[in-house]
């Protein structure tokens, strides 16, 4: 019997896709780099961002990456409760990250610094928001994985699914490190 074993190609395909997503973020980073001084008379990055708040946000996301790794290990050991605990923790931490991001956005908009206020803010909201959108999609992916685990338990398919998801989730971590460094840290230095 000749198997059409297409699932073997998924990790490589995912890596290839992630490369293209890097380019998407690269173009948004480039736009931010070009526009970050175009504040149209409004406050610049240093006056807007609270690095301590964003540091906590960052730690939340990095912790979620850790729990995501635990989910992969638990799935390998066929530890159903471990998978549940780790995936739910990842989901909650991802949700907390998104909530913090939306709070930051809400505060900025309430103070009149909306994405419509200047080219700088357009670029900022789009870059950070696109990352947030990816986190949201990751959250949906986690929900789907939890449904699979609930219905099917830990099978070859579900544990593979968790592994694929972890690739995506760690990638979002790396993008966030770039955002944290280039947008928030450099921003608070007011370069």
């Amino acid at each position, binding site marked *: *019997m*000749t*198997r*059409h074993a*297409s699932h*073997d*190609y998924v990790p*490589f*395909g995912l890596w*290839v*896709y992630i*490369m*293209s*997503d890097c*380019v*998407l973020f*690269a*173009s*948004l980073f*480039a*736009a931010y780099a*070009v*526009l970050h001084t*175009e*504040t*149209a008379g409004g406050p610049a990055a240093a006056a807007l961002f609270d690095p301590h708040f964003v540091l906590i946000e960052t730690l939340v996301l990095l912790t979620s990456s850790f729990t995501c790794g635990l989910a992969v290990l638990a799935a390998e050991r066929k530890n159903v409760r471990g998978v549940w605990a780790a995936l739910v923790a990842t989901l909650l931490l991802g949700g907390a990250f998104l909530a913090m991001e939306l709070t930051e956005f809400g505060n900025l908009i309430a103070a009149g610094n909306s*994405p*419509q*206020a*200047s*080219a*700088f803010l*357009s*670029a900022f*909201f*789009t870059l950070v928001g696109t990352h947030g959108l990816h986190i949201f999609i990751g959250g*949906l992916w986690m929900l*789907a994985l939890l*449904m*699979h685990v609930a*219905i099917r338990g830990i099978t070859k398919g579900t544990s593979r*699914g968790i592994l694929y998801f972890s690739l995506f989730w760690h990638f979002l971590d790396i993008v966030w490190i770039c955002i944290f460094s280039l947008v928030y840290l450099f921003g608070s230095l007011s370069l």
Partner: protein
Amino acid sequence: MFGILTSAAFIHGPIETGGQLVVVLGGVSVLLLLTFTKRWKWLFREWLMSLDAKKIGIMYLVLAGLMLVRGGIDALMMRGQQAIAVGAGSGYLSPDHFAQVFSAHGVIMIFFVAMTFMFGLINCILPLQIGARDVAFPLMNSISFWLTATGAILLNLSLVVGEFAATGWLAYPPLSELAYSPGVGVDYYIWALQIAGIGTLLAAVNFIVTIVKERAPGMTLMRMPIFVWTVLASMLLVLFAFPILTGTLAMLSLDRAIGMHFFTTTLGGNAMMYVNLIWAWGHPEVYILILPAFGIFSELVPVFSQKRLFGYTSMVVATMVITILSFGVWVHHFFTMGAGANVNAFFGIATMAIAIPTGVKVFNWLFTMFRGRIRYTTPMLWFMGFLFTFILGGMTGVLMSVPPVDFQLHNSLFLVAHFHNMVIGGVLFGYFAGLAYWFPKIFGFGLHEALGKLAFWLWIVGFAVAFIPLYILGLMGMTRRLDFVDAASGYHPLLVVALVGACIIALAVSVQFFHFLVSLRERKHRKDSSGDYWGGRTLEWSTSSPAPLYNFAHIPHVHGRDAFWRMKEKGESGREGPYEDIMLPKNSAIGLFIAGFAFLFGFGMVWHMWWMLPVSLLGIFVTILVRSFATETEYVVPAAVVARTEAHHHPV
């Protein structure tokens, strides 16, 4: 409920109404024909839901053919307008309508003819050339096609409901911003391209994985046919270039939909950033299209010269060098921006440098032909025609890569003639050659040679008559996209000549469609019963024509380049029994569902029907979720069926 869509969107002037009627009546007559011939079930089961790359490829080809007609009509309309809107005459198109026509022409020809045609040929041939049963992700392949088709449908819908962008094919801001293009035309443009672009990106992922992972045992990278190499290069370019397009159009869309300021003239927006970003995608796009055409020529020149390809390694190196250099030349599209002499010099020299690997390729083809026993078949004629037009276009390109010269020629008809020289004489002739060459493999019967040759001669003569005047007009100072020319300018006679050329091309296209019909009618005695119609060298010719569902009864073992040629020399056929069971992907409607929801999303964005956005996104999520629970996605073709199929195709 309907956003900004009102009944006014359906009411147009007389000429637009004509276009509207053609689209609506064409659609309705197809629906009626399907109903009367009771072909609905057949259409869905056998074609629309198919995950077979060969069938998906044919659907891409059909879409490209339809769009070629639409884009061609746009071209005739433009040539007609410019030939009569002179002096006291104002032509038959309003300036706004004329602008929509030239914008639609460019978008359709690049995205829905060239790209679509390319993916058609890749789907039909690439898996066969690497000795694979299918692509790496058959379902994603179907999704890619349907997203491309959705983009095309959305674009053509703008003819019926609303309007299309009047901004040129790249929709430069600030003109494409809401302040200067308040209608929905630019939104149709954005969402047609976004949706088709995602399909293209997924297809690139698919073919990269297919080429890297699915090659037959023994087919090392340096044993791959050159077409496979060029597709790999082209798909890598898609992977790195299309996300830039997605990001750029997303930014433009955010400007238009919620009032951001990426490219506006106020509050710090920077329109030149758009021009930089769009060409950072747009220049690689040119190579995305031309590299597979180079690959096609590299396949057929050895076959019709009856010699192996000259300089295989240098061909591979040249392909990869072009791939890398193509990301370093984008500024040559706007030397006049004012980036400064040093920046312009860098990009000018980088542009000239690309001519070197391209020249290597041309010499390799010529040396392949040298002392070969050349057969002047239709595909070979397309190649010879390509050599002349492409070298002419290449030389005018190098001419314009000199920044001071470009300052004179920027935005002139010289430029228009140059890139048509590359895209028609290079890309399109390449794909026509590929279609003529692989037609027997794809459909199982050969084409009428005499009519094919007639179409070629009409094309090349029409091309020269239509575009050489444009070179001259450009040197005379005529800028592009004029809906009216002054009588004193002296442009008029040459514009009439160009119209004649466009009509000859229209005749050529008609002859092409006629020659498909004639060949179809005579398919019984044009049948390719050997599977090796031309005496080919590569694996696609080792299986029957058309290839069976499973492509190969046995996965071939490759021992060198030109694998099939080696098999023939050793007297192996690779088709004898005993056979084994083969697993294949089942058909699926998932692609249709996802594309349907994507269509709703695009339409909702264009007409500000915000409620449609969450509905369609939820629909896509649920579709994917449901599919993720599917278990029986493959089926078995039993060995007995394989044996029967092989015996039927190759009676001993």
